């Protein structure tokens, strides 16, 4: 602004501008030879690291049974009230299982509290970030969409053991 004193006056080289432009051009030139970070999505997909918090999924053991015992802690801790669990009795040793487990992905805020609170390591954040729905009902994921075999979640489970 006119009349106001600058904090620091430009020196002669800065006033000339040309050296500054040359500096900028040098940086641009340098970047041209750097490795490319832009991915041509969807042809090329981003593979997130283990620390990534994608949509929460339920761990399915190798025998096809979910780890979840329907304790309801994820549902209680969820700040967005996205999770609904209905427990029921099973003849298995663990007595209790979720007959209904629904996550409303429109409510989910990917905070990962459900994963943190889970006493059974049964709900974990996956690497899945592609979530598209055409209506509200499609956004409610039931057990059919939530159960993921344990092999596919190895990365995350290892990460949790290390850092949780």
């Amino acid at each position, binding site marked *: 602004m006119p009349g106001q004193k600058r904090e620091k006056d430009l020196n002669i080289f800065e006033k000339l501008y040309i050296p500054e432009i040359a500096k900028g051009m040098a940086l641009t030139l340098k970047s041209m030879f750097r490795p490319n970070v832009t991915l041509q999505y969807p042809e090329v997909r981003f593979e997130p690291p283990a620390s990534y918090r994608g949509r929460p999924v339920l761990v399915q053991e190798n025998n096809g049974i979910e780890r979840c*015992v329907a304790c309801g*802690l994820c*549902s209680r801790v969820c700040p967005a*009230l996205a999770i609904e669990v209905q*427990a029921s009795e099973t003849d298995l040793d663990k007595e*209790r299982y979720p007959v209904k487990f629904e996550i409303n992905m429109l409510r989910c805020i990917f905070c990962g509290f459900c994963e943190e609170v889970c*006493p059974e390591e049964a709900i974990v954040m996956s690497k899945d970030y592609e979530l598209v729905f055409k209506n509200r009902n499609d956004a*409610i994921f039931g057990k059919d969409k939530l159960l993921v075999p344990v092999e596919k979640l190895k990365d995350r489970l290892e990460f949790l053991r290390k850092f949780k």
Partner: protein
Amino acid sequence: MPTLTVDGKQIEIKQGQTIIEAARSAGIEIPHFCWHPSLSISGNCRICLVEIEKMPKLAISCSTYASDGMVVHTQSQKTIEARNAVMEFILINHPLDCPICDEAGECKLQEYVYDNGKGESRFEEIKNRKEKRVQLGPHIKFDGERCISCSRCIRFSEEIAKKNQLTFVQRGDKVTITTFPGESFDNPYTLNTTDICPVGALTNQDFRFKSRVWEMSKTDSICVGCSRGCNTEIWIRNNEILRLTPRHNEDVNSYWMCDKGRLETFKNVNAGNRIDGTYIRKEGQLQKVSWGEALNVAAKSLKDYKSGEIAFIGSAYATCEDNYALIKFAKSLGVTNIDFAGHIISGDQDEILIREDKTPNSLGAELVGVQPGSSGINILAILKGIKEGKIKALYILEDDAASFNEEWESTIGNLDLLIVHATNENKTTALANIVFPASTFAEKNGTFVNFQGRVQRIRPAVATEEMDRALDGMEMSRWDKFGTEFDRWMQGHKYDSKPSWKIFVALSQLLGFKMKFNMAEEIFAEIANSISAFKGLDYDEVGKHGVQLKIKQTVNA
């Protein structure tokens, strides 16, 4: 007055009071598992150890009598250390299966561990294995591993239910609870043990795994199973009743209620045969119509009969307010043929809670005046009148007249006009010309008078189409507070029903009578003004625990 000092607080004590009782009366809660205010002292859990000055060792507060000048410390270092040690000892064999256990959230052990536990275990050996999922009786499952051997259930069945059915077997860490050989834990009060069990060892078969306790809202209510009127709490999730539990009221039911009341009285609220909307008989079939149409048809058809040709049957299942509205409506029509039917199963009574009168409000119906007017006829004469063709129109409030006996069933089928208020489909609604959907005890405000003459309140716990959980001030869980119509856990069905008094008010407006009530409370205010037994009462006065009416003698209706 002798005084006791607990944590620096002076407490006046009565003769024979223990330290835990005295502290409790002053609002100081000393941790306890085996002690229960209504049961004898056992003193086996040791968690209530306190430090008493001038005593060499810590003493258990549940069986140490308070005496003058005693100084007790419940939070001293010595006490807390002892408490932690007891906690550690109990947890040695207690499984860490809270995620599976149904008691989680209302478990005393869980609470005390949270308060007093060390958060880590020094125990590296293998925990004891005991029997799990033992069917102790028809309604109870027992998990031996979770049991902390406090013996509350044993003392309950011995002292309160008066049936010696449970006992400890084995010794030491192998101790477990079982029924006597060849016996089943099947007295009428077994489910109270699931309430008093401090852990999840005894679970209610009916409620098992249905819901977490923190997901439900609870509303103070009254059991409608018999004329005892046990104080209860209704537990709701997604607008559905999941369980009833007894509520403490020393004048009525203490801490208890019977299994029948707990399991059977609420099942009709969400049953498939609920009447949902108004029905009118057209071409021999009951058809669903709008409220406006049903009310108009009912008002018009009632006008077609002389007052002597109409009879009203009130109900001992309905509230005082509903019955009072019925009387007022009948009197506006000039009808004096008013009565109600008792439902007594003689002999089905005990010295504990169960009464042979199986209705919650027969005394209330009598007190508000459901009885024949000066020229009116009683219920037997009404039946006779229908047979002879003198009574042509019958109006039945929340009762299944066709199920009284075969005579009633065959007789009321011959009526010209049968109007019924009902909660569920029954034999009478199958014969009716007009059916109005009545709200159940869990869906309305009102009062019942139990056999002792104690007036007690019921409150709405289940929302109907005309009741909004938030606007009508009903109890709400966290889910109710933040849910929207798009959440599946908020989409529990709301029935299209109304409290009976509202239906009478709507009908009287169509017929031009002066009956203007907007709330059940206003009806109760009028009852309090006009009936001497209820004088000076209002809903606030009745409150949580009810009020004993000033009536000369309890009527054994």
